[in-house]
């Protein structure tokens, strides 16, 4: 318990150093672009692949459960849309990103810590936390909602493909279902969740990397911790945000 409080304190102190005005905005925006490519653009392929398969699987499962003739066939599309937008495209994708970009960030910053590159920046008078971490947090937090949208589209596409391929319902029934009782608020809810989750992932992984110690083993340990802790926090915050927003 005491240790947890200590960690929270350290995290808070680090974030105070992160969220300061950059020395030069030009340097910040350059790093923002670099991180946007590394954290978001480079995640598009894996997110797309997973989304297309999950979209297809959800459609098959729903179609199998809707044997009853009293339920309209278009419910397949409706259900697929709802599960994608409510849970899959935000929480599931965030958990996958926690593994991918969380370990990436923690090991990158951690190895800079143990090879004294962070010390070298500090000696020069550069706020290393601000230079290294702020672009990661801001780019992931601001751009990840679009990644969620992309995952949503591709997931629906996956559903459409399986519908065309198997013919379990007609494509027009599926498309009708997708449009049925559509609540734009859910998209907004899901984008908010994704942004919060990506803030958690980037800041927590940066924190564990920044405080890495004990050689390359230590870097490995800190990246494992980063993934475990950010996944846990994602689940907790999923609950909190859902309670607040829905």
């Amino acid at each position, binding site marked *: 318990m005491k240790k947890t409080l200590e960690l929270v304190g350290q995290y808070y102190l680090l974030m105070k150093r992160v969220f300061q005005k950059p020395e030069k905005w030009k340097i910040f925006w350059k790093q923002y672009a670099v991180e946007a490519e590394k954290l978001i653009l480079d995640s598009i392929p894996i997110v797309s692949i997973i989304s297309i398969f999950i979209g297809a699987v959800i459609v098959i499962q729903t179609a199998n459960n809707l044997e009853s003739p009293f339920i309209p066939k278009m419910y397949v599309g409706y259900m697929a849309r709802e599960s994608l937008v409510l849970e899959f495209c935000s929480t599931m994708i965030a958990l996958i990103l926690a593994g991918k970009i969380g370990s990436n960030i923690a090991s990158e910053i951690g190895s800079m810590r143990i*090879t004294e590159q962070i*010390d*070298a920046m500090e*000696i020069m008078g*550069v706020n290393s936390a601000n230079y290294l971490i702020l672009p990661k947090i801001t780019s992931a937090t601001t751009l990840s909602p679009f990644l969620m949208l992309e995952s949503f589209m591709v997931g629906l596409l996956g559903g459409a493909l399986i519908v065309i391929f198997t013919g379990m319902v007609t494509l027009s029934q599926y498309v009708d279902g997708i449009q049925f009782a559509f609540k734009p608020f859910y998209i907004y809810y899901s984008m908010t969740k994704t942004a919060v989750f990506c803030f958690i992932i980037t800041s927590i992984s940066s924190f564990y990397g920044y405080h890495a110690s004990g050689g390359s083993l230590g870097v490995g340990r800190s990246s494992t911790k980063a993934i475990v802790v950010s996944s846990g926090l994602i689940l907790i915050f999923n609950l909190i945000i859902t309670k607040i927003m829905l």
Partner: protein
Amino acid sequence: MITVKHLYKEFDGKEVLKDISIRYNPGECSLIIGASGSGKTVLLKCLVGLFEPEKGEIWYDDLLFNKLDLNAKKQLRTQVGMLFQGSALFDFATVEENIMFPMDFFTDWSKEQKLDRVNFCLKRVNLENANKKRPSELSGGMQKRVGIARAIALNPKYLFCDEPNSGLDPTTSILIDRLIQEITQEYGITTIVNTHDMNSVMEIGDKVGFIYHGELLWEGSNKDILHSDCKELNGFVFASPMAQQLKSLLRQEKKNPEDQK
């Protein structure tokens, strides 16, 4: 000039530095020597503010470093260069970008001006045309030289080197040592070098401080070091088997010079 007064540092209750007081002059290479784990790196990191000492004062000329606020510290840091034990080059950047890094942050120079300065620094350390190389493509000695080039990028008044020749062969070591000495004298820098290498001591040790278990036991120049009567220092200086044998040979020779013929 850097002045240290009664410096103490501990980690989790374990005293690592005890009552260190010493003065470092501009234009001189001052060495901190001692066995591994004696506290050399900790002392250096206290001096540059990477570690917070428990007690004591650190003066950079007439500035009391411990009491400076963040902005003043940052200001001072632009006058400080440091060469790290493992070079600590940024591996996300090329050699050129490494040396340019402090310029990007703290100068308003144009791209050409920065490039001029980079080339000047690289030339100074005899590494022309390495601009576009990555740190991982360089040998240990070359990395150290890039580290030095980066440390002098903004014309520092103070230069700190942590074991500049650890992991280098003797020839390269001497080259690096001489480079540090030349730069120090050329620009009148206050230079502090950590080392456990006796060759460096004899080569560039204008002023030497010997640390033993966190205490400063001896101070002097490399001319006096072989004649000191500090037991711990002698143990350190004559630690290698070769030094031991030479010493006993010399003793024998002193006793009976004829027999040796």
